[in-house]
Each structure stands twice: as C-alpha cells, then as structure tokens.
C-alpha cells in the first residue's frame, strides 16, 4: 500500500462515525449496512425456501405418500417458489446493488438513503406475513406461485395474506429500483460515463427499469384477484363475464420480464469475474450492453410462450415461438463474449471463477432446454412436466444462485478486509456443482417420460430418477451450510486481505482501501483513478 493510500485509509477511518447497536441497523441509511442486511435476509430466506424444497424432495424420494399430505405438499411448492424468487434472489441482487453500485460509480451513497432503509424494512414484514399464512385455517397458499384463478380463489384465509405480502414485496422492489436508477443516472462521479460503467451497473440499471415496468402489473393482477374474492368483481370469473385466461396473460406479462430481473444482474457479475481471472479486458463491452438491453426489450413480447396449451390462434403461437427464439441471439452474443474473454487469457480458477464458469456452462444448458420449450408443438408435450422444472431450475440455480455466491466470494475481501478459505470455498463449489446436476439433470428425463409437476405422488416408472434427484437435493442443500461457514469464518478470523486481492480486478471499488471504508467516495474519484478503474 502506498503512503497515499495509507493516508486515505486513515482519513476514512477517522470519519467513520458509525452508529452502534440496534440503531445502526434499524435506522440504517448507509448503503453498505443496508446491503449487508439485504444479503443476510436473502440468505435466511434461501435456507427457509431451501428447507421447503427438501420437504418436496423428501416426499418424492419414492412413490406413495410418506411424509406430508398433498395439501401441505402444494403449500410447499407454492411458498418455496415465492420465497426463493422474492425473498432470496431479488433481495440478494438488491443487496449487491447497494454494496457495489455507489462504490463502482464513485458515489458516496445511494441517492435516497432513507427510502433505501424503508425498502429493506418492508421485506421482513412481507415475509412474516407470507410464512405466517401457512398457519392459518384452511392452510397456506397452495395454488402454485403463478396464483392462477379459479384455483387460487378456492384457498382459505391465506389468500389475502399472500396477496398483501406480494404487494409489499412489489412496493419494496419498485422503491429499490427507483433508488438504483436515480443513483446511476444522477450520482455518478464526474468522468464516469455511461459507457465506462462496470457491466454490473449496466445490467442493474436495465433490471431496475424492468422492475418499474412489471411489478405494478403483478400488483394489478393480485389486486383484481383480491376484489374477485372479497368484493364481488368478476375480472377472472367466466360466470360473471370475466376471463380466467386474462389473468394468465397479465401474470406472464409480469412473469417473463421477472425471469430477466432474476438473471440480468448475474450477467453483470459474470462479466466482472471472468475478465479478472482471465487477466484480460472483457471482450465486446458495448455489445454486452446492447445485448442486455435487447434481452430486456424482447422479454416484453414473449410472455404467451408460458401459455401455448391454453388455446391460442396459430398466428399467436408462431409470434410467441419466434420472438422467444430471438432471445437466443443476444444471449448467444453474451456467451460467446465470455468465451472470447477467456480465449488465450492467463486463467486461474479461484472459487469465484469456478462459480462463474459453472454458470456459463449450466446456464447455457438451461437456455437450450428453454429453446426446446419455445417450440409450440413440442411444448404441448413438455408443458407442466418435470422438464419445465428442470429447465427453470437450471437457469435459476446455477444462473442466479451460483453468481450471487460467486459475487460474495469475489467481493468479500473488499467488504470485510478478510480472505475466505480458498480450500473450503472450492469444496463448497464442487459439492454445489455436483449436487445441482444430480438434483436437476434427471428431472429432464422424468419430464420427457411424462411426469407432471406439482404432484406429491407418481407412477412407479418414475421412481429411480426421482430417487437420484432427491439424493442430489440433499447434497446440494446441505453443502450450502458450508457456504455460511466459509463466510462466517472469513469475517471472524480470515487472513487479512490486500487492497486488491485479485490482481486482474479493475473498477473503482478496487481503488478504495480494504476493507472499504464506511463512507466511501466522500470526495469524487480523480480522473486518473476513473481511467484506471475503467480498464474493463
């Protein structure tokens, strides 16, 4: 560390003025504290949702009903999905956005720190409500996370609780997205141009616009469910002149962009990690930006590929089939760019890079099964089978979850000033990578053989692969405890991290002292630092 950096670190330490005790967290306005709370919250929800997944896989270990009755099984599938999407992955991305975006654009904090506090503190109450709904008369929400009427309207007292919880999550996401957009658009340090921002900032900016566009659509859909149930409207009731299929259109108009909300920040993370461990600049930076924007645009015109089997004119099927296939083009641009970044690079395989590579390979596998599902006539066969379950778990687990973990390993030294245990990190990676494939790959076979999703029991011909899948689930699930252990061990007693633990890392956050001071970029970074950080 140079004298200058020593001075900078000391100056930052003197001005930390960090609040202590519970007030630091309840009244938090510091982006790093709020980022930490989001990440811890996401981790807790990941384990709660993961436990539900293990209940599902335990029940499916062999045919017949062994552990839970069908009603509870349906509650588990429904709440597992809601928790993982809205409680684990989305808050984890917001946590990473909070930690990284101000540091990466040279801003002292998020633009709206008190709104940031409010966005976070809505979440624990939303999820208490959702999880609490499992314990009310009539049981928890059990109609699937897609909440299709008329089934969902036949639920018990849990419906208004689940709907209110979804409204709260939506409000939290919209407020968080507003904060991200104004931070990026209005708080960038002088000299940080749009086209020299890190890819993570770019992908989050696009994600935030998607959130603002589609979370109100979900809110509208569930509001109409609520009025149908309690106030005598008939938006989705055919008997009253409404249309249940209309709900599906509205839901998936939200639901498909939501998929990209869950995955676009992952593209950003991978675009930071692969260049670092390849010791080369990212190949095709601008094409990555345009590809992300194209994916976001296309996500609005493909929604009905989730609904091929509801009955649709042939022209509609053709349109949604072809528009869905178009997404392969910008996604292919990204995959080839990541491969080209590694080409002739000086590669090393530390834990973040291993997770990023697993993402690259397994997300691509999930993308290919997505292309199979996009073919309307083939989808008639695959629809609502385990093939779909395998597809979206390949996209979301090695896609979103692996990259969140890669990001934690990658930036943990900068956040905490401590290194994680590389050997244990690699153990965590290999157990996760093997577990996830043993868990989800056999589900392709089950689906192609005709096993429907969302059932607690099945025909005996599906027994073997279900057993394999359940074994994989337990390997994957329990290996995540190792992740918590590695992170806690690093925070408590990890070796001291250097200012730039990865010599190939570029970006303004790496120009800060390690650990990152409580208040960073109180003075905007100099043009020289910006130029050094912008070597993508």
């Amino acid at each position, binding site marked *: 560390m140079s004298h200058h950096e020593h001075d900078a670190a000391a100056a930052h330490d003197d001005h930390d003025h960090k609040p202590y005790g519970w007030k630091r967290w309840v009244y938090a306005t510091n982006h790093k504290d709020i980022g930490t709370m989001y990440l811890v919250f996401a981790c807790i929800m990941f384990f709660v949702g993961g436990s539900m997944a293990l209940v599902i896989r335990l029940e499916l270990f062999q045919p017949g009903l062994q552990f839970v009755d069908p009603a509870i099984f349906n509650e588990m599938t429904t709440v597992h999905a809601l928790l993982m999407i809205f409680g684990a992955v989305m808050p984890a991305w917001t946590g990473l956005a909070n930690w990284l975006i101000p540091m990466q654009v040279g801003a002292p904090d998020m*633009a*709206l720190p008190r*709104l940031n506090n409010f966005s976070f503190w809505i979440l624990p109450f939303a999820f208490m409500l959702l999880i609490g709904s499992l314990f009310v008369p009539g049981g928890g929400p059990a109609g699937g996370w897609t909440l299709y009427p008329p089934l969902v309207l036949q639920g018990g007292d849990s419906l208004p609780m689940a709907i209110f919880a979804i409204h709260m999550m939506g409000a939290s996401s*919209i407020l968080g*997205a*507003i*904060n991200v*957009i*104004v931070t990026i*658009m*209005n*708080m960038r340090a002088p000299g940080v141009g749009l086209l020299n921002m890190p890819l993570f900032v770019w992908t989050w900016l696009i994600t935030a616009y998607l959130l*603002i*566009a589609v*979370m*109100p*659509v979900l*809110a*509208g*859909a569930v*509001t*109409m469910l609520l009025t149908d149930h309690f106030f005598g409207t*008939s*938006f989705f009731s055919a*008997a*009253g*002149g*409404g*249309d249940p299929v*209309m709900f599906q259109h*509205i839901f998936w108009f939200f639901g498909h962009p939501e998929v990209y909300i869950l995955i676009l920040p992952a593209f950003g993370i991978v675009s930071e990690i692969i260049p670092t461990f390849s010791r080369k600049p990212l190949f095709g930076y601008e094409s990555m930006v345009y590809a992300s924007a194209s994916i976001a645009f296309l996500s609005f015109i493909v929604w009905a590929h989730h609904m091929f089997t509801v009955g649709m004119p042939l022209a509609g099927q053709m349109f949604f089939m072809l528009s869905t296939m178009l997404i392969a083009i910008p996604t292919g641009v990204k995959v080839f760019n990541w491969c080209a970044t590694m080409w002739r690079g000086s590669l090393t395989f530390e834990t973040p890079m291993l997770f990023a590579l697993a993402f690259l390979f397994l997300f691509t596998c999930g993308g290919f099964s997505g292309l199979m599902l996009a073919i309307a006539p083939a989808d008639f066969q695959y629809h609502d089978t385990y093939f779909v379950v395998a597809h979206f778990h390949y996209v979301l687990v090695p896609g979103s979850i692996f990259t969140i973990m890669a990001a934690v390993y990658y930036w943990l030294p900068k956040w905490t000033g401590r290194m994680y245990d590389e050997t244990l990190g690699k153990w965590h990676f290999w157990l996760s990578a093997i577990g996830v494939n043993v868990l989800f790959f056999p589900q392709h076979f089950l689906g192609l053989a005709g096993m429907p999703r969302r059932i607690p029991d099945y025909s005996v011909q599906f027994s073997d692969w279900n057993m394999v899948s359940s074994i994989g689930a337990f390997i994957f699930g329990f290996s995540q405890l190792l992740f918590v252990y590695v992170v806690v061990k690093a925070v408590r007693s990890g070796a001291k991290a250097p200012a730039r633990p990865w010599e190939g890392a570029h970006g303004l956050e790496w120009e800060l002292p390690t650990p990152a001071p409580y208040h960073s970029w109180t003075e905007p970074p100099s043009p020289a630092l910006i130029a050094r950080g912008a070597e993508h």
Partner: protein
Amino acid sequence: MTDEATDRSRRVRRNSLLLGAVALAIYVAFIASTVLGLRGP
C-alpha cells in the same frame, strides 16, 4: 449546499417522483384495461 449539489438533489427528487408516477400509472392502466375488457354477465 453548493448550486451543483442543490441542482443534483432537485434532479434526484424529480426523477424519483417521475419513476414512481410511471409505476403507479402502469398499475392503474392494467386494472383499467381489464375493466374495459370485461364482456359483462
């Protein structure tokens, strides 16, 4: 506060309110469009 800082905080406030209004408008528009799509009993 400097002029530049005041200006920036004004931009932040204006842009956040605008984005919030867009979100609210989308919420209302989707419910309204479903109301208009109802065929009646």
